[in-house]
């Protein structure tokens, strides 16, 4: 039976891709790229299966191998990486010999079975797929090969249990969960709410300016700790909307006096901000300890200190 034109075209499109991807597996420098190459080969293979009228096999290949097995593989590659070296110390004495014996036994069985098996004539696709492709596959798996399937299933379950047992660790300390953590935080008298966000000013809203509390005092904790330790905290007066200063300037200008910055400052009183604190040695928190004088023009309510 000669393949149809479409099938030939599909083959010649997929074959070079698969060969390239397969050699990519050998030559890729990064493990994730190699894994991607394997995925490409698997999906192309699935296309070929479907083209050869084995849609069930093709789709299951993608669902099981590409979707689950390869995904887990990639998962481990990303999380652990390939640098993690295995310990080569043998903990089970004599396992090598048992392994060789088992391998030899398996080889003998395989050679014996394959050598003695008789192959019936091929029945052809039409007859094999007569009850529908999935139904045909199901008849073979759950009819002729049901015992083999059950044995392989038992083996897989054993392997999964083995993985569970090998990776199991005894819990040495009691599990600390959310309620315990919350109780500990309350008992310690620590802050219960999230830290306040940094301030937003007319001319600046980066993380280095503190927010103001209802009294108009800067909240030190609203600036990230790292910036405070580095001494990169900015003052607040530097960035506040300077409406009052502008108003004073306008009033002075209206009176017909030539206005200089010095005069405005004199009219306002001092508005100088605290200078930026110098970088502190790591491990200490710095930042304005006293209230920053926002000048008389701030709209905050006066409070007793």
């Amino acid at each position, binding site marked *: 039976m000669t393949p149809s034109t479409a099938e030939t075209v599909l083959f010649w499109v997929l074959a070079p891709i698969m060969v390239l991807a397969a050699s990519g597996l050998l030559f890729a420098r990064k493990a994730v790229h190699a894994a991607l190459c394997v995925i490409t080969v698997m999906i192309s293979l699935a296309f070929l299966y479907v083209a050869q009228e084995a849609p069930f096999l093709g789709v299951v290949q993608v669902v099981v191998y590409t*979707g689950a097995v390869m995904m887990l593989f990639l998962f481990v590659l990303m999380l652990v990486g390939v640098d993690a070296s295995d310990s080569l110390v043998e903990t089970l004495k004599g396992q090598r010999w048992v392994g060789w014996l088992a391998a030899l036994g398996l080889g003998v069985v395989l050679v014996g079975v394959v050598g003695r098996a008789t192959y019936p004539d091929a029945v052809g696709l039409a007859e094999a797929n007569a009850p529908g*492709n999935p139904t045909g596959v199901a008849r073979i798996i759950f009819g002729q090969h049901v015992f083999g399937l059950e044995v392989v299933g038992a083996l897989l379950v054993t392997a999964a249990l083995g993985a569970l047992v090998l990776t199991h660790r005894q819990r040495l300390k009691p599990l600390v969960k959310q309620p315990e953590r919350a109780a500990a935080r309350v008992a310690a008298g620590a802050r219960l709410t999230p830290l306040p966000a940094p301030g937003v000013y007319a001319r600046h809203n980066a993380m280095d300016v503190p927010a103001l509390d209802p009294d108009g005092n800067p909240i030190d904790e609203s600036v990230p700790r790292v910036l405070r330790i580095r001494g990169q905290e900015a003052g607040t007066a530097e960035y506040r909307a300077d409406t009052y200063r502008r108003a004073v300037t306008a009033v002075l200008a209206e009176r017909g006096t030539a206005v200089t910055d010095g005069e405005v400052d004199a009219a306002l009183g001092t508005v100088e901000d605290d200078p930026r604190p110098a970088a502190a040695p790591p491990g200490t928190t710095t930042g304005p300890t006293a209230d920053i004088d926002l000048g008389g023009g701030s709209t905050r309510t006066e409070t007793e200190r």
Partner: protein
Amino acid sequence: MTATLAAVLPTALPAAAADGGAADFSQDVFWVWLLKAVGILVFLLLSVLIAIWFERRVVGRMQLRPGPNVHGPFGLFQSLADAMKLLLKEDVTVKAADKLVYLVAPFIAVFCSLLTMAVIPFGPEVSIFGVVTPLQLTDFPVAVLYILACASVGVYGIVLGGWSSNSTYPLLGAVRSTAQVISYELAMGLSLVSVFILAGSMSTSEIVASQTTVWWLIPLAPAFVIYVISMVGETNRLPFDLPEAEGELVGGYTTEYSSMKFAWFFLAEYINMLNVSAVATTLFFGGWRAPWPLSWIGDGVLNTGWWPLLWFVAKVWLFMFLFVWIRGTLLRFRYDQFMKFGWKVLIPSALVWLVCVAVVQGVRQFGGADVMAMLPWLGGAILVIVALSFLIPEKKAAAPAAPSDEPFDAFAGGFPVPPLPGQSLPPSPRARLRAAAADAAPASPALVGGPATDQGADGDAPESPTQEVPRG
């Protein structure tokens, strides 16, 4: 690109096209495939534009605000404006990124999401320019498995996007997403298997054909519930949107993506919502079949021609509304709760349900029993199970705390606590003062506060309710 590939696919698969379940594709020619593929693409892209607007409007209504209402009638062009904004934004490629994978990841996500609709039946046979053809691009005996396969390959987009950004939050988002999709795909697959068992096929058109008398929603209600839960988990939507949890992971796997590359991910998420809604419609809601009272009109005339397209789209949007409703109602799960729910609740219950369905179907098929004849037995079995469940000793409720006679310690355990049953609050300092004042001067009204001996620290605090302290 997708359209052409989807169109070429049937040509490459003559067997699959010929073996199309209940749908007959034998009349199809090249331009019909092309037309259907382009039609699906246009339907998906338009639906995404509408879905974004729809979601924002409905969530807005649920939160008592109007939602987008500026651009176009009812704000309909808002999504267009958003799309234009994304197109014109600066396209940042992270310096430390793995360039190739970083570029390819969004395409994988979108490409795989576009594939699913190829096997969804939009309607029965119609005549397109003289060619009688089913309103479905293609169908084959393992169509529903194909949908699962596309979904599982689509996750690679998310995983690779998160990894290639070479940044912490995207990687964490990608890892979460992988674990999430793998765990919820199991429950989803198991719930779909019960439909396969009853319908006797995995081809979408045959599953729709098998729901002529009753939608699978009714006999398979538990499987439907499991499917709905896992479809929300599969599409990374609230309350299961842990891969992109803003409070924890900034933007999850999309953190380092901007402009059009971000838009691809966004598009894929919404197309996936449409996909899982369409699958739920096809497998549980009778596909394109008219809902019950309408199906009686004119001897089923509403189930022929182009009418079913309307029912199909209406049912899909019903599920889209469900998505939005859930988003507007539920809070995000914590990650460990989410995993526990998937592995310890959803998968076991899906397995139990699957065994029940398999047993009933086995008795029907091999024992030759009729469903109606089996109903009393089934009812009896359920009654016995319910009766047995009463024999299980109830978990002892924690004994009510005995009224404690210990003196009340307001700071037991180090932080302020209310009194336990049996304990009583000590009188407040203010009440004590009032009592003392009443004792000291029983005859005259206490205009001046009591003795300022024990509350001296609070200089300006009112020491008694009757004393007025002028406040500045």
